[in-house]
C-alpha cells in the first residue's frame, strides 16, 4: 500500500494546484535554459552551416561575425592554391538596415506594450517607439561555394546574376517582396531559417558582387569630393614629376572606386589534412589572421555574449533554488497537515522509513510532475518568443535528475518535523 499516492489521491486538488505552481517555475527554468541555448545556437549556426574549417580575416581583427575586417578579394586565390585547402570562398558580411515596417503579430504587440508599460520609469519618451528599421546581417557569397544559406524553407536559392536575395524568416520578409538597398531593388526569392547573427539579427544572403555593391560602393557625393581633393593634391605634384601625373590620377581614381573588397575568406580543408596545420601555414601570411570555426564560436560566446550568458545562467540557478525552496515549503505544509495521522501511523507500529518515504515520495512526485509539465509548457511556448528559445529532451532528462535530488533535500525539513511527532499525542485526546 503506497501511502504517498493514497494521500495525493485524497488531497488531489491541493496537490495538483501546488504542482502547477512548481511547473510554472520549472517552465521558467527551462525557458532560461532554452534562451541560453538559443544564444549559443545563434552564435554557432551560421558558422556551422557554412561548413568551413577556417575563417581568414585582416590581421589584428577578430572573426567576421563580430568585427568587420577588409581584405582584397583576390587574396582568396592564394589561399585556394595552398596545400591541403579544398576550397576557399570570399565572403562579404556586415550589418545593415533598411527602412521597413516591422511586422508584428498580436502576441508580439502585446509583449511590446507590456515591455513599454513595465519600463515606463526607466526610459525617456520615444526610447521605446516601435522600430522602423529592419536590421540584418548581410552576407555576400558565391553560389555553390562556402557561406551560402544551408537550407531553403520556402522559394528557391539565388539564380539570377543580380538583385536576388534569400532572407531568414525572422526578417519578416515574404517571397516576392523587394527591399531597396543603395538605389537598387532586391527581390526575396527564398527564405531560410535560424540564420541569425550573434545578436539575433536575421541574415540576408546576396550574391557576392551585389553585397560588395551594397556595402563598399561609395556615396556619389563622397566620391566627387575625393576626386576633387585628389586632383588638388596631384596639382601640387605636377611641378615635381609631370610624367607621373596620369598614372597617379588613374590609381587614385581606381582606389576610391574599388569594390573588390571582401570581409573574410571561408576555408574548407581537404579530408585527412590537419586543420591546425593549414591554419599555421596561413598565419605565415603577413596581413592575415586565421581562426578555426570553434574559435570563431568561442569569440562570439565568450566575447560578445559572455556576460549575458553568465547572467542568464545565474538567474536560472536562482530559479532552481527557489523551486527547491517552494517544494520544501509545500512538502512541509503537507506534513504539518498530517501530524496527527503520522502519530497514529507511529502508534500502529508503522516502520519509520515508511513514514519518511511517504513524505519524500510526495516531494519527488511533485518535483517530477512539475518538471514534466513545466517542460511541456516551455516546448509549447517556444515559437512565441521573439528570440530563439531551444530546450531539448536532454535538458528535461538532466533536470529530472537535478529536481529529484533537490526534492529529496527539500523534503528533509518535513522529514525532520515528522521525526519529532510523538505518537502519544493521539492518546488521551
Amino acid at each position: 500500500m503506497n501511502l504517498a499516492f493514497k494521500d495525493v489521491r485524497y488531497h488531489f486538488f491541493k496537490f495538483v494546484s501546488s504542482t502547477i505552481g512548481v511547473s510554472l517555475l520549472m517552465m521558467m527554468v527551462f525557458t532560461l535554459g532554452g534562451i541560453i541555448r538559443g544564444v549559443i545556437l545563434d552564435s554557432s549556426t551560421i558558422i556551422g552551416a557554412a561548413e568551413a574549417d577556417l575563417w581568414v580575416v585582416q590581421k589584428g581583427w577578430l572573426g567576421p561575425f563580430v568585427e568587420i575586417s577588409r581584405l582584397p578579394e583576390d587574396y582568396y586565390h592564394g589561399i585556394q592554391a595552398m596545400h591541403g585547402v579544398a576550397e576557399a570562398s570570399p565572403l562579404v558580411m556586415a550589418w545593415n538596415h533598411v527602412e521597413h515596417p516591422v511586422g508584428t503579430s498580436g502576441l508580439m504587440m502585446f509583449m511590446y506594450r507590456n515591455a513599454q508599460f513595465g519600463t515606463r520609469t526607466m526610459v525617456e519618451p520615444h526610447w521605446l517607439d516601435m522600430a522602423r528599421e529592419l536590421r540584418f546581417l548581410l552576407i555576400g557569397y558565391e553560389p555553390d561555394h562556402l557561406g551560402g544559406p544551408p537550407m531553403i524553407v520556402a522559394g528557391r536559392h539565388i539564380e539570377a546574376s543580380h538583385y536576388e536575395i534569400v532572407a531568414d524568416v525572422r526578417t519578416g520578409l515574404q517571397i516576392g517582396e523587394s527591399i531597396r538597398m543603395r538605389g537598387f531593388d532586391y527581390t526575396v526569392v527564398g527564405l531560410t531559417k535560424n540564420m541569425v547573427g550573434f545578436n539575433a539579427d536575421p541574415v540576408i544572403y546576396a550574391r557576392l558582387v551585389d553585397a560588395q555593391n551594397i556595402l563598399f560602393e561609395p556615396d556619389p557625393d563622397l566620391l566627387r569630393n575625393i576626386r576633387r581633393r585628389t586632383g588638388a593634391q596631384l596639382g601640387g605634384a605636377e611641378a615635381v614629376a609631370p610624367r607621373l601625373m596620369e598614372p597617379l590620377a588613374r590609381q587614385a581614381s581606381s582606389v576610391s572606386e574599388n569594390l573588390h573588397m571582401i570581409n573574410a575568406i571561408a576555408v574548407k580543408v581537404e579530408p585527412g589534412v590537419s586543420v591546425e596545420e593549414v591554419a599555421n601555414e596561413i598565419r605565415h601570411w603577413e596581413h592575415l589572421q586565421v581562426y578555426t570555426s570553434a574559435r570563431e564560436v568561442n569569440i562570439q560566446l565568450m566575447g560578445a555574449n559572455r556576460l549575458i550568458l553568465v547572467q542568464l545562467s545565474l538567474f536560472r540557478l536562482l530559479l532552481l533554488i527557489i523551486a527547491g525552496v517552494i517544494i520544501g515549503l509545500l512538502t512541509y505544509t503537507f506534513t504539518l497537515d498530517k501530524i496527527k495521522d503520522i502519530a497514529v501511523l507511529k502508534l500502529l507500529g508503522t516502520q519509520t522509513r515508511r513514514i519518511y518515504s511517504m513524505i519524500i515520495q510526495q516531494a519527488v512526485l511533485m518535483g517530477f510532475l512539475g518538471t514534466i509539465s513545466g517542460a511541456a509548457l516551455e516546448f509549447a511556448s517556444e515559437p512565441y518568443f521573439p528570440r530563439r528559445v531551444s530546450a531539448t529532451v536532454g535538458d528535461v532528462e538532466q533536470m529530472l535528475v537535478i529536481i529529484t535530488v533537490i526534492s529529496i533535500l527539500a523534503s528533509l525539513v518535513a522529514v525532520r518535523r515528522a521525526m519529532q511527532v510523538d505518537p502519544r499525542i493521539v492518546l488521551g485526546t
Partner: protein
Amino acid sequence: MSYGQGRTKVDALKEVDLAVNKGELLAIMGPSGSGKTTLLMILGLVTTPTKGQLILDGDNIYDGRTRDFQKLRREKIGFIFQFSNLIPFLTAEENIMLPMDLVGITGQRAHSRAAELLDYLEVTGRAGELPERLSGGEKQRVAIARALANSPAMILADEPTASLDTERGLSVMRLLRKLSREQGTAILVVTHDERMIGEVDRVLQLVDGRVVSDESQN
C-alpha cells in the same frame, strides 16, 4: 509498575500490579490525573516505566534485551481511539488493511481478512468510503476492525465511546465484549463513562496513580 516524570519527580503511577487475561474486557476508570492515560501509554509501549515489569503474551518486555517496540505494537497490540483516528486518505477497507500491510500481509489475503472484519462489524457496504463519509458509529466500527486486523494479543481502547451518544456508546461496548469473548483478545478500555460499567467484565479504579479497587462485574 511505576512511572515518574520531570525534574521534580511526580509519580504518575505507583506500584500498579495488573494482570489481564485473554478474552477479558477490562475498564480502567478514574478521575482526571489519576494515571489512566499513563498506564495506557506504558501498556501501548510508547512510554517506558521507571521501574517494574510488563509481560505481554508471555514475553517480558523490559528484561534488558533490546526490542523493536514498533514491531511489537504492529503484531501484538491493537489501538482504538476516542475519535476513531482513521487515516483520512485511506478508505474504510484500506484503513483495516493498513496494519496487515505493515506486517507483510497484502493482496487477496488482506482483502479477504478486511472483508471478513467489515462483515463481522456490519459495515460491509462502507468498504470503499473515506472516513469523512462515515458516521461516528461507523468510524468506530472500522477503527475496531483495524485494531482486530492482525488478531493482536491485546487491544487498548482510549475512551472509545466518548464521542458517541449513549445508545451508540453501549453498542460499541457490547461489540467489544463480544469480540473479547469470541476472538479471545484482552481488551482494556480507558473510560470515565460509568454507564458502560455494566458491559465490562472487570473494573479497575485508579486514583492518584494507585489502584484503589479492582472488581469483577460477575
